[in-house]
Structure formats: structure tokens, C-alpha cells
């Protein structure tokens, strides 16, 4: 396995890197800070004796990021799996951010994923067992007064992966999209949550267990499917009163 992970330095991305390295996968890791990547890459090489290359690139600068990752991939060798556990949010995402701030959220959650997928799709179509895995958020199940732009970007990402699955339906490429509930990352740290946060490690292990399966979209943990359905079914007169 030769795997590209975009957003690898923390949370689900780091956990995916660790679980895949334990299983012997060679990795091309992408994140914004070289220091995080260097520490993670050294650790994975030393513990699991896998090949790990890194690209420090800012996902907000989409074109430059795609160029740098593509260059690194060319010397890394043929990639058969691409994971996008990347994302960014802000506490003040309540509908009145500056354009640059909105751009940053849209670029990091959506545009860079679309751009990198487009760059790698031709080669993935040639490889048996190739797969593309995206990660959405429970925040996009139904629009609300917080995480306004973030939820829109994640909803857009869900639509994009639906299209991607349709586009590749007659090929060997598997496309999976996970809508994540509460995960114990910086995003949920210290918050009073209605449901328990699962560890990034457990998410990563489930994702790897599902490798190659053709299910389209799945909630993680699975019970979030029921919660999402309940939220969607709430009458507007009730939903509009909720403050969450």
C-alpha cells in the first residue's frame, strides 16, 4: 500500500497514519507544519520501518498545495489510496466573517480536497484496489447558526463525494465518505457534549477495517445515523428554538 494522507499531523489524520504504518503502508503525509510532520514521520519510520515522505503545505493556498503534493507524489511512487481527514473551523463562524476567513474555511475543507482528487484521479483509475476516502462532519446534517461556513463546506464535500462515487462507479476505484460525530480532538476538547466523543484511533481503525467496501457514505460512530435522522426530522418550529 502506498497512501496519501492530507491533514495528517493531528486527530483522525495522525491516527490514520499510525494505524496504516502499523499495517506496513508506505505513507506520503501532508500537513501545514513541517515540525509536526517531521516528528510523526520519524516516529513511524522508527517504530514500523515504513517509508514516510512529507509535504508541508498550506491547504488555504490550493493551487500551490496541489503543486507541491503532486511533485512529492511523483518521486514517492504510485499512490493507491488517498485519505482526506483535513478540515478547519472557527469559533466565530456565525455568518459575518471576513472574506479571507471564509475563503480559508472553504479552501481547507472543500477546494483543496476537490483539487487534489482531480490531480490524482487519473492515476487512481489505473490502479486495482484504489480508493478515495473523505471525511465530513455531523455539523452539516442540518444548517444552524454556528459553524455556518464550515457546515456549508462539509455539505458541499458530501455532495462532491456522492458525485465522485457516481463518476467512478464503473471503475475499480472505491469512494467512501465518513460523516464523523464527536471525535476527541481539539475541536471537541473541553466542550460539554451531548454524546461521548470517540477516540481518533477508533475512527481510524474502523476506516481501515472498511477498506475496499462499497457503501458510499457512513456515519462514525454508526449511531450518529439515528441522531442525524432525528435532527433532520425535527419540525422547523422546534428546530429554530434550539441553540447548539
Amino acid at each position, binding site marked *: 500500500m502506498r497512501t496519501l494522507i492530507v491533514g495528517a499531523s*493531528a486527530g483522525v489524520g495522525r491516527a490514520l497514519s499510525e494505524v496504516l504504518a502499523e499495517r506496513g503502508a508506505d505513507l506520503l503525509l501532508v500537513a501545514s*507544519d513541517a515540525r509536526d510532520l517531521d516528528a510523526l514521520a*520519524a516516529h513511524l519510520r*522508527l517504530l514500523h520501518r515504513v517509508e514516510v515522505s512529507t509535504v508541508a503545505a498550506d491547504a488555504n493556498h490550493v493551487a500551490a498545495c496541489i503543486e507541491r503534493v503532486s511533485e512529492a507524489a511523483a518521486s514517492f511512487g504510485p499512490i493507491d489510496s488517498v485519505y482526506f481527514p483535513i478540515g478547519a473551523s*472557527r*469559533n466565530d463562524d456565525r455568518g459575518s466573517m471576513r472574506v479571507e*476567513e471564509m475563503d480559508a474555511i472553504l479552501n481547507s475543507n472543500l477546494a483543496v480536497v476537490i483539487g487534489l482528487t482531480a490531480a490524482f484521479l487519473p492515476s487512481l483509475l489505473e490502479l486495482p484496489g484504489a480508493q478515495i476516502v473523505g471525511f465530513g462532519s455531523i455539523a452539516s446534517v442540518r444548517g444552524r447558526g454556528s459553524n455556518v461556513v464550515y457546515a456549508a463546506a462539509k455539505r458541499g464535500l458530501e455532495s462532491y463525494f456522492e458525485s465522485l462515487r457516481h463518476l467512478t462507479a464503473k471503475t475499480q476505484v472505491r469512494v467512501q465518505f465518513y460523516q464523523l460525530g464527536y471525535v476527541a480532538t*481539539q475541536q471537541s*476538547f*473541553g466542550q460539554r457534549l451531548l454524546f461521548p466523543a470517540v477516540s481518533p484511533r477508533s475512527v481510524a481503525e474502523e476506516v481501515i477495517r472498511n477498506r475496499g467496501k462499497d457503501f458510499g457514505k457512513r456515519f462514525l460512530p454508526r449511531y450518529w445515523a439515528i441522531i442525524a435522522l432525528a435532527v433532520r426530522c425535527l419540525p422547523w418550529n422546534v428546530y429554530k428554538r434550539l441553540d447548539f
Partner: protein
Amino acid sequence: MQEMSGGAPRSRSDFVSFDGGTRSPALLQQPDRYRYWDRHDVQSPRISRGAGLSYAAASFLGDGLSVAHASFDRVTGFDEQQAVVEVEAGITLGALHRFLSQKGLYLPVQPGHGRITVGGCIAADVHGKNQARDGTFIDQVKALTLFHPRHGVLELSREQDPALFRLTCGGYGLTGHILKARLCAKPIPSNSIDLKASAFTRFEEGLASLVHAAAHADFAYSWHDMAAAGKHLGAGYVFEARFATGSGSDPVIEEGPEPPHLSAEGRSAWRLPLLNSFSARGLNLVYRFQQRAALRGKRITLLDALFPVHRAQGYFRLFGSRGFHEYQVLLPSDAMHEYLRAIEARIRRRPLAITLASAKVFAGTRESLRFTGDGICLALNLPRSESSLDVMAFLDERVVALRGVPNIIKDSRLPRAVVDACYPGADGFRSALRAFDPQRLFRSELSERLGL
């Protein structure tokens, strides 16, 4: 995924020292990226937090900020020729041992539980199973990386800023956040350890055997029954452990299970204490019964020898939410007899529930606030109660009189006056700390209590 601001969110938590003696609400951050260390916030008093297992409330301050290093837990370098490993300070001893043992290496100086972090070991300059031979944790630290918001990232070693290096090793986290360390490992002679217990009937007899064992064995410690009545008081065993030689001693690779979860909050989960002077007798009888195999001589794994608390951590829960005291003292050998007589006299006047008494031999010179020097180290455990503070004050008085040093990291109650009386280097430590950090940004319940 994270906030774009680059900062780490804060959460309000209730902290408790492992001995249950100090409780405080404080803020907790758990950064997971290096850019956190670019932030030069000098407003909040702060302190690093590793596993949170310090007895002495060293990793939190009421209404201060604790910065957890849990995400910085990686092996970042390894020099096979020199047997030097570079790690982030949040790595646990258990995880590091798993890595090193695959290379046929180990750290000789390690405390008894694999959940303790390397950063915590450096900050408290802990000792291991044979301090007289192996020294303390600083002796295996080749270099470290320290971050202080006013000074930035500093590389420290015996050659590069040696004064700050020595102030940080055994500095209780008060010089800054320890980010990384380069540690010197040693070859594992064998993955198997031959453990042999020898019984003795008198405390002094046991200490004499212990001194002999420490000079010849790889690990050596004694156990004393301080709950026994009359002439049996202080009887017990000396344990000598040696790396096995001969058949069955070959395998070096030791994957080992994850260390069992241990936390200060989990330790105090049971509300009611189950240990008193009566049940302490029962506990010691059970312990004696369990040592039958060791008396004959038995073979254990290196993992079990390094981290004996893994199999016995239920013991700490028996103290209940109120907790316990540990009084660990290092006394000159010639003062130990008088110390023991004083304890015996006290026990005769009023029974004490001493649930554990264990001794080790120490060698070295006293310096700064390190728990080092020549003599015998004796640890006593007793349940926290209305009267236990009187007992601890009595021990304080005896230790000061006998020119001993109490272990600062083992006691959340230890008064400043006792530390000042026992540690001639205390004022020097304070002066050096203030010279480096005049605003005293790094503070903890421990530092406030001791005026550091």
C-alpha cells in the same frame, strides 16, 4: 481537525494529587501541534502536565493553566551506535520501553509504573530500582529541549547551559515546558530476571542484607511489615533481582501489554477507605503469603521487574477518596536506627496503619532539591485520616533532627519549613529560578506551598 487560530482550547477541570491530599480547579490545555509552542503567552501561570500521577500536586495550580503533553509522545530519533534515543516528553515509560526493548535496550532508571511520562521523570529526577548503582534519571539524560515563553526554545545539556540543565532536571517543571529529551539507554542483558527474596526478622538485619544486595544485584529493595505486633515489627524480606543467565534467558524482544490505566481520579474512585491498622495487618499477611515463590527464587520478566506497580495498583484504591500519605526519606545509614526506634515508640503509644514500608540503598551527593545522597531510603504509606497529619509532622520533626531529606515529589503536604531545614540547596534553587524567570510564570501547587 482544529481551530484555525492555532491556539488550543482550554477546559476547566478539577485536579487532584495522586495521594488525594490536594484538590484544585484549574484550566487544562492539550495542544497537539508544534505551533502551540510558538505562542508566547506570558499572562497565565502555567505548568506542564504529564500523566498527572505526581503525589505532590506538581502538575496543576488552582486557577492556573496545566498544559498536557499527551499528544507529544513520539520517538523522534534513535542512534543505534550510541544507544541514544530522542523522544518527546509526553511519551510514557511503557511506550518507550516497548520501542527500546525491540532494539535490545532499556533505561536502567525508571519508576514503578509505565504510564509515567519521560517529562515527569526528568522534572522530578526520579530514581529506579538500584539508585546506589544507577543514580537518578538525570544520569541517563544526555540533552533536553526546553520551552519558556520569555526565552523561546532552549537546547540544554551538560555542555550547553549546564546550570539550566541541572536546574531543569529535578526542577519540578518550574523552568518551563520540557519538549524533548535525548536519553542514554543500556543493553538488556536478558529479558528474564531471577528474583530471590530472603527473610529477616529484625529491621536492622534487613537493612544490612539490603546494603549487601544493592552492591551485588541489579535491583534491590526490602519490604518490612510495620503492621505486625511486638517483636515481629519490621520483619520482612530483602528482594534481590539479577538479569538471568544460562538457559531460558535469551529472548530480548519484549513487546509487552499496554500499561494498565492509572490516574489520580481513578485511584480515588472508592469513597470509603478500606485500610486501617487492623486491615493493614491482613494486607501484609496476604503480601507475605504471595512471596512464597520469591523465597524459593523465581524468574520474572524485565517488564514486571521494571514496573511492579502494574500488578499491584489496586492497592492504591483501597485508601478510598480521602487518599493516603507517603513519607519517603533518605537518611544517613547511621541515623536509620534512631529513626526506626522513634517510629516503633510511636507505634507502641498509638497503633499506626502503616500499610507499606520499603527501603532502598542510595549513593551520591546532595544537590539542589534532588532526592539524592548517601544512605538508606525508606518509604512509608499510611491512610489519610484526622490523626495522620500528626504522624507526618512527627516524622518531619525526626527527619530534620536526624539530618535526613524527605522526597518532595512524594508528599503533597510537606511544609516549606521542613524542606528549608533539610535541603541546604533550597535557597539556591529559588535564586536560580528567579534569575531565569523573574516573573515566575511556571507555578504549581507544589511550588506555591514550598515558596519556590
